[in-house]
């Protein structure tokens, strides 16, 4: 929605840019698409505007989004009923749940059979050594198989008969949760107004805060989130919302309001700090572009997940840093810049690693047999070493991305688990202060000549196309490994490098590098 050539949005439709080009989409077409996707939850159509939009534009977007919410809710009700079949399809796509149930049952049966075959082959091979244990193993295996097969039969029959929860007779959006889009740009008053217009509407199962992460300062975000939540509470028809003590002791007079329905915010997951900040402000669901960003640059996340038990805030600077970031209101306007949320740029070593992440491109990992993060239980850390990851990156092997993404995703999941625990223990503020004390540097793109010839799926609109040259590329430090490479074999850096991720270095692009929200 921000790129050159986008057509302006109207009261009837927004402009969407996808791989097939630009499209004008109104609520009807939008809901048709949603119904085809059959999601578990979805956001209603939103006229999303970037943070620097003029007030008049913002207020127009709020008006449209509110009007579209009503249309979407009506259509949502319509899509609760089964739809008449469209046209003559070769294969009728099955109802949601039915198809999944059948596929899963078939898959389990086949896999089970194959496993049994291979077990038999293996047992034959192992022969005498395993003889005494075999009868027991086979007996338990047989029992487990029988039980599983009975289960599969039941579920397969159930799914086929449509007796399962999503059987025949249900509409495409039956069971889907509607998240009402709450706009308002970067103007707290507008956000509050937008939320108030929507609060308490029947059929809404959650709220989606739209327009965040579009260029506003991260330190201004809590105020914007709070404004939306305040608008929900302010409406007299809304159910009584739970309240919580503010996370900053200094302003104990103002209570932070929480929504009784789940709150989703996209575009606020650009870093763990931002995730933490959004959660502290009342957000429940977030997407996180951080994982893809660090993976693409060859990093493995290594930040600790819990403060040491005896950790205390060292200085008032820690406390005020967090307070500034979590401020409920900011008197000088929504776009106040503070230094609190800016990452420390001196935290990185020359190869881009720091306390929170390591850069596997660095030749310092050439012989490192440790896992990416010692103690991590993810499949990459359980099975492979830093040395192998380093090699895979240098060799441009796909497996590098696979393993790093597995680890980084797992680490972020563990991170939010730790946040949940901190909240349950009433320790969120301390957790935030401790996390802010970790030194973290920016994500650097790897050095070297650009990769030729590989097709890359384009990112969401607004993110720059992969450039041919690495801008501001940082030289990967040559470690002490000059030894065995004297003959010229195994030279690590000259053949390495991948500049497709130049966008990672562009901090401005980070804000735009987020999912297209529907």
């Amino acid at each position, binding site marked *: 929605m921000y790129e050159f050539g986008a057509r302006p949005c109207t009261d009837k439709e927004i402009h969407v840019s996808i*791989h097939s080009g630009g499209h004008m989409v109104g609520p009807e077409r939008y809901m048709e698409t949603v119904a085809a996707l059959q999601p578990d939850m979805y956001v209603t159509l939103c006229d999303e505007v970037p943070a620097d939009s003029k007030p008049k534009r913002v207020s127009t977007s709020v008006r449209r989004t509110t009007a579209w919410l009503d249309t979407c809710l009506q259509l949502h009700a319509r899509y609760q009923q089964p739809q008449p079949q469209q046209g003559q*399809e*070769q*294969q009728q*796509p099955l109802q949601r749940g039915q198809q999944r149930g059948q*596929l*899963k049952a*078939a*898959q389990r049966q*086949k*896999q089970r*059979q*194959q496993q049994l*075959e*291979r077990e038999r*082959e293996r047992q034959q*091979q192992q022969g005498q050594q395993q003889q005494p244990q075999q009868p027991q193993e086979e007996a338990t295996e047989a029992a487990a198989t029988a039980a599983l097969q009975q289960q599969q039969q039941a579920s397969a029959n159930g799914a086929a008969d449509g007796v399962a929860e999503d059987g025949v007779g249900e509409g495409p959006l039956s069971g889907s949760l509607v998240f009402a889009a709450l706009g308002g740009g970067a103007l707290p008053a507008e956000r509050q107004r937008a939320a108030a217009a929507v609060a308490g509407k029947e059929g809404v199962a959650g709220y989606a805060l739209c327009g965040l992460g579009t260029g506003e300062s991260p330190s201004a975000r809590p105020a914007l989130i709070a404004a939306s939540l305040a608008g929900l509470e302010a409406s007299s028809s809304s159910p009584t919302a739970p309240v919580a003590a503010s996370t900053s002791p200094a302003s104990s007079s103002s209570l932070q309001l929480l929504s009784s329905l789940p709150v989703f915010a996209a575009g606020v997951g650009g870093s763990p700090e931002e995730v933490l900040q959004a959660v502290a402000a009342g957000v429940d669901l977030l997407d996180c572009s951080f994982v893809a960003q660090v993976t693409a640059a060859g990093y493995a996340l290594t930040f600790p997940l819990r403060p040491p038990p005896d950790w205390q805030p060292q200085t008032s600077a820690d406390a005020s840093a967090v307070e500034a970031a979590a401020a409920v209101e900011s008197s000088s306007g929504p776009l106040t810049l503070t230094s609190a949320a800016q990452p420390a740029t001196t935290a990185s070593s020359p190869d881009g690693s720091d306390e929170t992440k390591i850069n596997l491109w660095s030749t310092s990992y*050439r*012989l490192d*047999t440790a896992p990416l993060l010692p103690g991590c239980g993810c*499949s990459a850390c359980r*099975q*492979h*070493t830093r*040395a*192998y990851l*380093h*090699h*895979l990156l*240098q*060799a*441009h*092997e*796909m*497996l590098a*991305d*696979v*393993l790093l993404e597995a680890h980084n995703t797992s680490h972020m999941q563990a991170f939010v688990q730790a946040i949940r625990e901190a909240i349950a223990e009433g320790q969120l503020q301390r957790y935030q202060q401790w996390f802010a004390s970790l030194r973290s540097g920016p994500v650097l793109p790897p050095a070297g*000549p650009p*990769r*030729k*010839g*590989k*097709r*890359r*799926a384009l990112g969401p609109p607004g993110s720059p196309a992969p450039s041919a040259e690495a801008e501001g590329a940082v030289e990967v430090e040559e470690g002490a490994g000059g030894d*065995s*490479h004297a*003959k*010229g*074999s*195994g*030279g*690590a850096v*000259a*053949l390495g490098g991948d500049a497709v991720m130049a966008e990672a270095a562009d901090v401005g692009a980070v804000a735009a590098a987020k999912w297209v929200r529907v």
Partner: protein
Amino acid sequence: MLLRRVKQVVMASTASDALPSSESPALKFKVIATQGRARSARMTLPHFTAHTPMFMPVGTQGSVKGLTSAQLADLDCHVILGNTYHLENRPGSDTVAALGGLHGFINWNRGMLTDSGGFQMVSLLHLAEITEAGVTFQSPLDGSAMLLTPEQSMAIQNRLGADIMMALDDVVPTTANDPARFEEATHRTTRWIDRCIAAHSRPTEQNLFAIVQGGLDPRLREISMQQLVARDLPGYAIGGLAGGESKDDFWRVVAQCTAGLPPGKPRYVMGIGYPLDIVVCSALGADMFDSVYPTRTARFGVALVPEGTLKLKNAANARDFRPLDPTCGCSVCARYSRAYLHNVVTRGIASAAILVTYHNIAYTQSLTRAMRAAIEEQRFPEWVRNYLRTMFPKGDVPGWVRDAMAVAGISLEGVVAPGSPQPPPAEAKGGEGAEEEQGMEQEEVAPAAESKGRQAQPAEA
């Protein structure tokens, strides 16, 4: 002598005392069933006992393109390949040795095979030349002159630590029209095997296989076999094929070599990856195969199915909600439809390649598993007939397959349409066609081989 050996193999029964086997310092090979010339065997290697006939996926740079070691084990792979040239380049065999050998480095605890490095050099590098000393080439990093000798190939492979290592051979592409060169290469390969044997420093932990050369000349192939067999190595490969020769020539060389090599030792046809070729070679008595074909063709969106290949980019797949292969039990076929895969493949999403790769490897493993079972259950000819019927429903089995099956002693009655005309000899039905992807020996390595795209490897010496 050749004929007598052929008769011996053909008349082998399944009585256990007649089944061939061998024991070498680091390898035991035991044929457990035969039918015709085909045999099902167990090959006990230092790290794993593999079942043959088997297909070995190629993990050129220490990774089978996007799949983890755990996935390869799930897919029932017994032996995988690493390419010596690439691994010596990056990260270097010293580094690999320091990290526990190739097994420890990539965390693969089953069988591993490394090639000699010679073939990659000749096909990948400009100005690579074979001399009596070894393969001379320019270092890709700094252009300096380098030489890969048999001794160095052995040293590198000893450091990599694979269960099976290949001798450095003098391989001439079969399309070369230079009989003197083939003669020279045959004899040089023998001289080099002696140098390899002398330089091999871990004969009780790693198996050195020799590679039979001789081009398409039966006389040279016979000489090569006799000379190599006299060195009593744990196993033998049939090299110099899969380089652009016609299928008629190809199967004849395989047939001659499987008949001429000792029955109690494994026979490895290098560079074979088309499922049809695997079936034909197994019927002729071969045990091991490797190729980048299944994994590479996956990255072009081509899935291997019993009918042949499925080109996922084809718009016909856009609304086809069946799995790739309804008879396949792999998790890709359990979870994804052709329509979904068509979508991700045509949009160039990287993980699409991994999904199709996963299925293609599952396919090759299930193919070889089915062949082994059919041989062990004495129904291999019927299995072959079913396989060919599925691939050639109109009965237009290529002439070379018919000829090869005749020699293998497998009747194609009910498969071949009576009176159907002989197709031209160079066609290989069920594959990509002779001009594409024949003779691939190594995976793409960025950036060197990228620009070669879908062409066959250039056949220059």
